[in-house]
């Protein structure tokens, strides 16, 4: 078992024929991901990487039965591409595109109301279920099947956590990067709910950062609804206030936004908090062991 994607997922790429999408579609296929085609408006009817190209997502869904989409469309057109995927009934929409205007995402979120789609991103490394399905840009070879559900805002810090867990002999059920933008598709809670309901997930590692209240909201939710151990790391303890640290969402605008304030609050809520960035793997290991 796993969450969001697995070996049966039928994946399409929007912006399929572009350079990045082509590279990552090939990488995904090498790992065994079931890529069933792609969408590039105006190139419908052709074949790319041995897969059919469609003009619209609706047509791709009708012909291939696709239920997962990876969006590699440039920022000015990305919001439209997400709404097209929602409307076509895609179940999991992974938005790799970085730099989408915030107000476009505000409109997308309104549009998504009443639909069942789970939107991951934008500005995300994507979703991977090790050895089954990769919808993203992460290096697939570092992920190993296992029992840790991983959810992070950052991509490269997600890889770092995976490497540290590998060193402890811990693999992942599924890894999800939700992205670093202030208005994004799904939050930590959406993914945690999936992990709670997934029999393969034994414990959940949440990797957050400064800015906003998402991590604390997630811990409050977990306290009420999650029976599995929750481990958390918050990046940005050394970040100065008022400065945007790369991610548009990573900015300390008040006392409760700081890494230390978040870590304190998470501890109060019963979360296993990682104190040092280099101890992510060790903290997960001891949380999992202490449960047995």
């Amino acid at each position: 078992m796993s969450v969001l994607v697995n070996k049966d997922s039928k994946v399409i790429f929007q912006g399929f024929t572009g350079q990045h999408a082509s590279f990552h579609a090939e990488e995904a296929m090498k790992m065994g991901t079931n890529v069933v085609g792609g969408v590039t408006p105006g190139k419908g009817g052709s074949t790319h990487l041995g897969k059919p190209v469609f003009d619209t997502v609706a047509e791709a869904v009708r012909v291939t039965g696709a239920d997962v989409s990876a969006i590699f469309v440039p920022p000015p057109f990305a919001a439209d591409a997400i709404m097209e995927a929602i409307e076509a009934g895609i179940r999991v929409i992974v938005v790799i595109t970085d730099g989408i205007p915030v107000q476009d995402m505000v409109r997308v979120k309104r549009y998504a109301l009443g639909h069942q789609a789970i939107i991951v991103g934008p500005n995300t490394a994507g979703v991977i279920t090790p050895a089954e399905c990769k919808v993203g840009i992460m290096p697939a070879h570092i992920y190993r099947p296992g029992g840790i559900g991983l959810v992070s805002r950052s991509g490269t810090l997600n890889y770092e956590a995976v490497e540290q867990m590998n060193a402890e002999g811990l693999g992942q059920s599924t890894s999800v990067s939700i992205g670093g933008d202030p208005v994004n598709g799904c939050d930590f809670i959406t993914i945690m709910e999936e992990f709670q309901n997934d029999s393969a997930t034994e414990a959940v590692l949440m990797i957050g950062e400064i800015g906003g209240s998402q991590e604390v909201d997630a811990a409050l939710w977990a306290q009420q609804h999650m029976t599995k151990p929750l481990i958390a790391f918050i990046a940005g303890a050394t970040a100065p206030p008022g400065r945007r640290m790369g991610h548009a969402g990573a900015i300390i605008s008040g006392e409760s936004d700081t890494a230390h304030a978040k870590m304190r609050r998470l501890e109060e809520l019963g979360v296993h908090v990682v104190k040092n960035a280099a101890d992510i793997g060790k903290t997960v290991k001891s949380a999992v062991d202490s449960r047995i």
Partner: protein
Amino acid sequence: MDIHEYQTKELFRSYDIPVPDGRVAHSGKQALAVAEELNGERWVVKAQIHAGGRGKAGGVLMADNLEAVEQHADKMIGMTLVTKQTGEAGRLVQRVLVEQAHAIAQEFYLGLVIDRATQRITLIASASGGMNIEEVAATNPQKVIREAVDPAVGLQDFQSRKIAAGIGLTGKQIGQVAKMLKKLYRCFRDKDALMAEINPLVLTKDGQFLALDAKMSFDGNALYRQPEITDLRDFDEEDPKEVEASGHDLNYIALDGNVGCIVNGAGLAMATMDAISHYGGRPANFLDVGGGASPEKIANAFRIVLEDPNVMAVLINIYAGINRCDWIANGIVQAIRDLAIEVPVVVRLAGTNLEQGLQILQGSGLEYIQADHLSDAAEKAVNAVKGAES
């Protein structure tokens, strides 16, 4: 992207949002000419910098006669204003806004933000004008009212009336402020703003509402479709190194430590800084090279980091997903050769094409310190600084 108060007020005028009569001036003489053209007997002279807290720092002065306008402007222009938001270095004042002064009956707060909790454009208002809204929200949360706007239909009149009544207005005043809110919302939405703040909104003794101070910031990701906002960017208000870095598609923020950092990804970059401080060091900067880092990009990153004279060691931490370790390694070798780097360089590579990357580094014959994982890298960088200091 931030703009100046006078620019925000010009934008407000174009949306028919009432602001005091006034204009920008670049010298005492110009300020005097502006004041002469404005009607009235009292004026206010306001230093134009992208930072708040000007009033307490002497950047906002009243003038009861024309001579005082000229004197205040002469004094402010060319001075370095240090407010609680500028840091110790302060900001050089290059221009002032000269406005007609008004007799004020009451002050309010109005703001628009993109609220993370509702994920919508949200109006914030309070009867406690002129104060820091975060402080009001922390100490008297019941005094701050919020109204989220449904993007499908936009701000509705009833919401504006609710806000106006919520800050204690009555009778005709409700309609006046509601109209103003509607225009402010339209401006915010049209221009891809992230924040708009009128603090204070004042009710003058003769019964008009005016945006006495006005601040806006805009979404950098939307500037491609906002050419007139892009033109308002003032590079003098930004750190020249950060501007240079963004020209190379690098995300750089200067800090006050001595371990230079070159990392890919914002989250890993923050975690690397945190690890350095965990081992007793202090990061000199935040630097995210992003995805697809070419050898040239790595070389530029080195150059920018080493321009900081405090840097005593450089830590490169790359976890390649979309990046490739061999390209990164080529960039490191090129930079160490071309820039004749004298400080110790600690390199930690991981991910895509790691073997090829390590071969390039080891085959180069250059001196560097190899690290195998994050804690190893942070510890070696901190020790390298200690070694250089002793």
